[in-house]
């Protein structure tokens, strides 16, 4: 069933990771990603892995949840591993073999890099509600408004999309059942047949999405929406002591990794 897909994947909780300002968490993820791409040696990877493990412990996110999220990426991970094993030159592990020691090392590092990258972003979405995330993003991108970049419009669109995903999924389920009751078949036939069979689902879905958008626009106007200008927020984001400490730690991590890189570690 479509309903079973977890979207937004926010796990409500009350850990320090949940309480951090979303802006802090967004910046930390950026710092972490930069650090990740600066890592060269085993020591650096070790430090980053430990950092992620520590963050997981702090935010009460189990390894199982992370694995669940990684599942759809398995193919890409495997491909990365295999390509690196076979296409890295160096000393063969056995004379005459194409596989090299360097290849194995590189494969491990590349796979680790992707896993850490995904885990880092998961930690953000797992501990931050979609609304907080878009709010944080809007505030962080605020300076771009001076360049006439539509920051408010972009973030409100994001949060609307998040709001309507569950509604539209439910609707898709309903329309599919209704068409199945009229004998539509979504499960057999060639790829082309199946794509065609989706038309009776997609057309009503689009029609309804447009109708919803129309009604939503009227409802928003009725509630005095007139763009981002002069808007206030009920939940104000205020950076607290813990946010500054977390940011300092993030910067320290990046500096450390860059330092290690200098020494080739």
């Amino acid at each position, binding site marked *: 069933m479509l309903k079973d897909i977890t979207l937004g994947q926010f796990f409500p909780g009350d850990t320090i990771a949940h309480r951090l300002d979303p802006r802090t968490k967004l910046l930390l993820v950026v710092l972490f990603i930069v650090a990740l791409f600066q890592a060269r040696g085993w020591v650096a990877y070790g430090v980053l892995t430990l950092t992620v493990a520590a963050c997981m412990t702090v935010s009460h996110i189990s390894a199982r949840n992370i694995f669940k999220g990684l599942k759809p990426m398995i193919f890409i991970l495997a491909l990365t591993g295999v390509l690196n094993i076979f296409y890295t030159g160096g000393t063969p592990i056995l004379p005459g073999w194409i596989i090299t020691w360097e290849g194995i090392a590189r494969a491990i590092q590349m796979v680790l890099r992707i896993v850490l990258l995904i885990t880092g972003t998961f930690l953000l979405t797992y501990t931050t509600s979609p609304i907080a995330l878009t709010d944080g993003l809007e505030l962080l991108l605020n300076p771009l408004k001076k360049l006439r970049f539509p920051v408010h419009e972009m973030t409100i669109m994001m949060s609307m999309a998040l709001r309507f995903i569950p509604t539209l999924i439910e609707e898709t389920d309903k329309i599919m059942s*209704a068409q199945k*009751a*009229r*004998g539509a078949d979504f499960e057999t036939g060639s790829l082309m047949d199946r794509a065609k069979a989706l038309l009776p689902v997609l057309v009503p879905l689009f029609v309804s999405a447009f109708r919803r958008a129309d009604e939503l626009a009227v409802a928003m106007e009725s509630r005095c929406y007139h763009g981002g200008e002069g808007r206030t927020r009920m939940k104000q984001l205020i950076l607290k002591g813990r946010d500054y400490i977390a940011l300092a730690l993030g910067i320290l991590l990046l500096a450390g990794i860059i330092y290690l890189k200098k020494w080739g570690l």
Partner: protein
Amino acid sequence: MSEIIVEKLRHVYSAGTPFEVAAIEDIDLVIPQGQLVGIIGHTGSGKSTFIQHMNALLAPSAGKVCCGGQDINESKISRRDVKHQVGLVFQYPEYQLFEETVYKDIAFGPKNMKLSEEEIDQRVREAAGFVGVEEELFEKSPLELSGGQKRRIAIAGVIAMRPGVLILDEPTAGLDPAGCRQILDNICAYREKTGATVIIVSHNMDDVARIAERIIVFSHGRVVMDGSAGEVFSRAQELIDIGLDVPHATALALALRKQGLQLPEGIYTHEQLLSAILEIRGAAVC
């Protein structure tokens, strides 16, 4: 023949997770060919889950549904065939219209049944006739029409499959009184002409009381009452206690009885109530 036999039917959502809930349980019913059945129950009482078992859209967690003597979940083929035999019209069916023209939309079902062109054409015209959709509308886009018309076209799309059993979930929801009456009249006409079984799920007790020969009441996933309108609505207080409405005439009869008027049990239409009161007056005068 499409007699429906339901045995020990049970359906569980989210089986094997902590959220496991039994939506319906222990349902045993026999619905003979040609009966007009009303199903009532509040939201979440299991009635929607139940009707989706009638054409194998949902598979039972336990128990069996037979239609015309055949277990409908026996094979992939039986699950497909039952959809031709049991037509299911969902709530707000107008939201599933998708073709460019009214004609093509009504033809979608028969086309999926792989019928011949002539057969499809004949069925589309017949189905449109049942719901009072004129042929001038055939080449129009369904999206241009009024709400009531769209609803009737969507129902025609199911009728065109000539189901021996027609099931409708809240067919009158959101329509004004004139629209409601027209849809119900269309459905009754279909049944009279074809001898099909009709099952209507509705919140509107007056509608159910007026047209159904038999009323089945769902509550918390079980059948709690099953009988004629007179039998079911004579238990008006019980219905009110499980959070359901009763027909307006029944509610008024209940109030009159509380005032001490000796009205007979099981009143559910205006005419019954009127004649019962007039009878009492007649007796008083004599």
